[in-house]
């Protein structure tokens, strides 16, 4: 089974390229503290605003810090946020969708009204308002590293609706199947049926949706940080580095704006292609 999925996935050439690029970005972010000769926080007055060169492949910023080093440190933050926010969103969405689809009736009705409520919230506006609120929440885990935990929380809270509807739909059709009836006849508890028997059958679309959600979360985080409402400096993320570059690029220091965005773009397009490849590979109609 796993071999078959991999064989299918390999056929999608762009998905393979995406996987390689993403692997490179992850590897760079993980190893940057060992590989890079520069400190991400230490400023160097002599080397301020240097354009890309051999010593600084992506130039330096206004404080003379090596952009490339900071970008890979930023990658740690941005990628972690993308993954954790997705994990949170998919967990909430799966539980809500599963309960709504399996129990139906009033439960379904209430949970779907809740979903409607979250869908009606204008996304970026809500992200900004929630980030304002976070400033007053004095919980260390939410405030560490410039507020990474808080951003994960608000991104997760605003991104579960798609998964919830997806899982609900799957459950509505799956609960009529014989194996569910068999499990019920055997007297297995409802919760166990939901999570042990039905849920594994819905894994495929959830995996694909989750992959795309990682990309969406990374864009949202960088957008929020770009506006100054996300992760706060000096913790570098691709978004807040772009924010800092806004004035500089109008003076002609293009590299400060170009490279952070390039990192976001490469990550997002790679993940999107991987998601596309997974969709094809996991599609049972294509299995041979």
């Amino acid at each position: 089974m796993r071999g078959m999925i991999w064989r299918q996935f390999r056929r999608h050439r762009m998905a393979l390229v995406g996987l390689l690029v993403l692997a490179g970005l992850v590897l760079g972010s993980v190893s940057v503290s060992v590989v890079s000769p520069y400190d991400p926080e230490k400023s160097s007055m002599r080397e301020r605003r240097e354009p890309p060169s051999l010593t600084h492949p992506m130039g330096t910023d206004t404080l003379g810090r090596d952009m490339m080093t900071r970008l890979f440190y930023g990658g740690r933050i941005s990628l972690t946020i993308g993954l954790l926010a997705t994990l949170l969103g998919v967990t909430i969405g799966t539980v809500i969708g599963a309960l709504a689809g399996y129990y139906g009736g009033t439960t379904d009705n209430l949970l779907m009204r809740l979903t409607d409520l979250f869908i009606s919230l204008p996304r970026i506006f809500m992200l900004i308002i929630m980030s304002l609120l976070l400033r007053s929440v004095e919980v260390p885990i939410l405030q560490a590293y410039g507020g990474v935990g808080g951003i994960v929380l608000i991104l997760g809270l605003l991104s579960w609706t798609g998964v919830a509807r997806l899982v609900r739909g799957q459950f509505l059709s799956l609960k009529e199947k014989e194996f569910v009836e068999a499990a019920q006849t055997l007297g297995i508890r409802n919760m166990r049926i939901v999570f042990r028997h039905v849920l594994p059958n819905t894994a495929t679309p959830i995996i694909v949706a989750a992959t795309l959600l990682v990309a969406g979360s990374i864009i949202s985080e960088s957008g929020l940080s770009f506006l100054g409402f996300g992760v706060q400096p000096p913790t570098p993320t691709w978004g807040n580095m772009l924010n800092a570059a806004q004035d500089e690029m109008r003076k002609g220091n293009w590299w400060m704006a170009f490279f952070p965005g390039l990192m976001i773009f490469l990550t997002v397009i790679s993940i999107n292609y991987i998601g596309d490849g997974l969709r094809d590979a996991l599609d049972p109609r294509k299995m041979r």
Partner: protein
Amino acid sequence: MTGYIVRRLLQAIPLLIVISIIVFGMISLAPGGPMSAFEENPNLSPEDLARLEEQLGLDQPVHERYLRWAGRIVVGDWGYSNASRRPVLTEIGERLPNTLQLMATAFVVTLLIAIPIGILSALRQYSIFDHVATFLAFVGQAIPIFWFGLILIIVFNVWLNNPVSPSTGFAFSNFTNCADCAPLLPGGGMAPFGVDNPTFWQRLQHMILPVTMLALFGAGTYTRYMRGQMLEVIHLDYMRTARAKGLSEGRVVTRHALKNAMTPIITIIALELPGLFGGALFTETIFSWPGMGRLFYRSAQRVDYPLLMGIVMINAVLIILFNLLADVAYAYMDPRVRFDRR
């Protein structure tokens, strides 16, 4: 159908109330509200501060403030901006036309790009054109629009200079900044600095970059939708029938394929249109475009809650209305969908 619409509109009322409670609660709890500006003022004594707090009604508990806000909203009084002391409706009313101008232009540009390319892509599936278009659509979907805006400014405002600049005459200055050169395109604002009544040409110039930025927001997505929908219908039996009747290929495509492929597209457009306000927030912030998005951004920095509430509620109403519009449009165009018998 009318019954259905009325029912949906009635359902929207409790939804909006709950949304307003949640948002109001969150903004009220956020630090840096209207009082923080006064607190930094050394000329104000604690008694002055207490009096101001009372005047602004901020000494009341959150639920009472909410009820008062809601009571006024119902009769059309949206309160006053804490920063400018002007009515919220005036502030929004001044900027809404600018935002709509930007959004409408960008939206038309998006569709003019996406729909023809999507159709051609589907008609010539797996051709070079299709591969290139699909790749570009993927790229367009993955580019963060705020980054795209910055790149547009770097290229068309910082690097490229106007070849017929009023001060230097006809001269390209090859990516270098010379003091006399005028940028090829303006990188911010709605009109040249200090000009109150810009000409049509000046307005147009100022719109090019922001509209391009905002148009990218949906172009990739709509191209892929359009291609996908065309591919869905293109192999169906009635297409073969239409061809067998001897209709011209153009007529088959426009009358039979396109008409059926557009139904879901219009639904998707209705669902995603309010999302353009989110894109406009970035565009207006980057290009100093005096619209609603930028107003929201500045109000968020000051935690100016009457304005924040006003803008969020307008957006929530639009999302709900467009959701309803999507369902109604779908039912209208697809006779198989009927709500009344449910």
